[in-house]
């Protein structure tokens, strides 16, 4: 099961813990609803769902490997053609995708790192530390999830031009350095995975809070941090509205560069599809390698939502 990857690291438990503080998942009765074996109809429906999910991506590949006449014929082709590499190369140049890729990696990487760091810090404080106003502040965090960040684009745009950041990456990075969903996710995880006894033991040994965070919390939080990193990376890579407003074509992120392909006067469909394929490849690669962990992480964050 996916919860497997979410157990605290064994090394951080120097002595067996009382049963009460152990993650309770194992002690639950077998999961509800899983008692029924799937019948052929279930497999058939799931197969159709998987096909619908994957077909557009498969077809992107088909179109990207054909030439324009082949893509626009009727009936459309269902098998890949011979022009894949050639089209990818052309799209790479036409849409300035090289620069866009580099920009997207920088933006998504920095945002994911800072989100994970600050979310773990704040999540630990909300989960395990006692301080005045804790509950009200936590409610505030949850409340901020409801505020769509895009609504501030007009003043943000003015701020960025005041700071001289217009068309530059910091303009995209700074507004999304933290995430309320991330804080909440880490709080939920640490409340369950980090035993109070460990924090207390650190206190007894005279460690100050930052040291406890560094030596005790981080090792326990590592699996959740990895998942939060990936999910944030996906979101930051795909973010569109604000980057589209504040960046221009001389310095775009991948989604912004892709609009250039479709808005052109030359309607070369196979090139457009090659660009779309390139823009999604890094994330697809991540999904192929870490799909199980990402699925587990999204499900983990959902419980008690």
């Amino acid at each position, binding site marked *: 099961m996916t919860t497997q990857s979410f157990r605290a690291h064994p090394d951080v438990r120097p002595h067996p813990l009382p049963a009460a503080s152990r993650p309770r998942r194992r002690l639950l*009765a077998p999961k509800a*609803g899983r008692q029924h074996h799937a019948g052929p109809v279930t497999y058939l429906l799931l197969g159709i769902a998987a096909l619908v999910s994957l077909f*557009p991506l498969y077809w992107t590949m088909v179109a990207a490997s054909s030439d324009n006449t082949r893509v626009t014929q*009727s009936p459309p082709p269902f098998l890949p053609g011979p022009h894949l590499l050639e089209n990818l190369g052309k799209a790479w140049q036409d849409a300035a995708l090289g620069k866009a890729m580099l920009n997207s990696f920088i933006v998504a990487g920095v945002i994911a790192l800072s989100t994970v760091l600050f979310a773990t810090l704040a999540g630990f404080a909300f989960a395990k530390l006692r301080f005045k106003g804790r509950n009200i502040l936590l409610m505030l965090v949850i409340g901020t999830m409801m505020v769509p960040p895009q609504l501030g684009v007009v*003043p943000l745009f003015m701020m960025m031009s005041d700071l001289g950041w217009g068309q530059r990456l910091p303009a995209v990075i700074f507004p999304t350095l933290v995430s309320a969903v991330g804080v909440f996710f880490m709080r939920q995880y640490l409340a369950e995975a980090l035993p109070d006894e460990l924090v207390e033991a650190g206190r007894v*040994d005279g460690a100050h809070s930052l040291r406890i965070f560094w030596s005790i919390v981080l090792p326990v939080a590592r699996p959740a941090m990895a998942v939060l990193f990936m999910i944030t990376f996906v979101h930051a890579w795909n973010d569109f509205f604000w980057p589209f407003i504040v960046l221009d074509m001389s310095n775009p992120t991948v989604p912004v560069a892709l609009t250039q392909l479709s808005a052109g006067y030359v309607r070369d469909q196979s090139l457009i599809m090659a660009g779309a394929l390139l823009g999604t490849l890094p994330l697809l690669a991540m999904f192929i390698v870490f*799909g199980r962990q990402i699925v587990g992480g999204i499900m983990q964050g959902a419980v008690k939502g």
Partner: protein
Amino acid sequence: MSPDPRIRHDRDRPRRRMLLHRLDLRGAPYAFIAPFFAVFAAFSFYPLVYTGWISLHRVELASLDLMEWVAFDNYVALWEDERFWNALFNTFTIGVISTVPQLLMALGLAHLLNYRLRGSTFFRVAALTPYATSVGAAALVFTMLFERDFGMINWLLSVVGIDNIDWENNKWAAQTAISTIVIWRWTGYNALLYLAAMQAVPRERYEAAAIDGASRWQQFLKVTIPGIRSTVIFTIVLSTIGATQLFGEPLIFGQGPNGITGGADNQYQTLGLLLYEEGWKNYQMGRAATVAWAMFLVLILIFVIQRVVKRIASRRA
């Protein structure tokens, strides 16, 4: 845990240590949560409030520092602007036809994934793959699938004997196509949220229902659905917020200049597109801010209405 040799135990100065320790206990939590609140205040909360202030002014994109006070003129103009009502209505209809089927299908998919399966990881990752596709790429692919002359969807329809549909220029067809992009991207994600909630429903409840003679369908209605209620509400809130801000899909679907206006007759212009058009095509930042603030008010209104409806419904029950 053994005492860490690296931590100094200076017993000579116990009072100072006590002070530092208390300072640490009191202050550290605030230091830990400070970065989140600082960034949020600077880049989310302040802009949101400031948007309201800007909306009371006339500001041009070319001269951002010149703000001319016009009080509620922008709001009056927006209220009298047909494009605003059109965009509001479009946002609402696209929101409904993308959210309702999406969440219902997610519920069904979660139920299927909840069976004891071979290859369950594959089915889950497959369901989540669209979520990893960027708005840009997804919109480009679907725009092509919905092409009038050579798109695969019209070809499939012609196989069953339906004439070509002009997906871009027909209002309802365009809105359906745009909703399809949203549904494709988010159904799997929501299904996984539901699946997680379903697996947390205690098994005893199912057993109790079975002993009472409930069929599987009744168990689904009476045990599963109430068991995942909070998650369902959570996804409705998130999808509603997402629908209000719909922007990338219609923009790219319009392929170029038509994208910003949401089609030649604004037939699929959403509030997000209208905001962009006012600010960055007509260079009227004050009016763009007015649209943003109107979007916010619409969201608040939706949730207030939802609260009221819930209260009336619970009183009846």
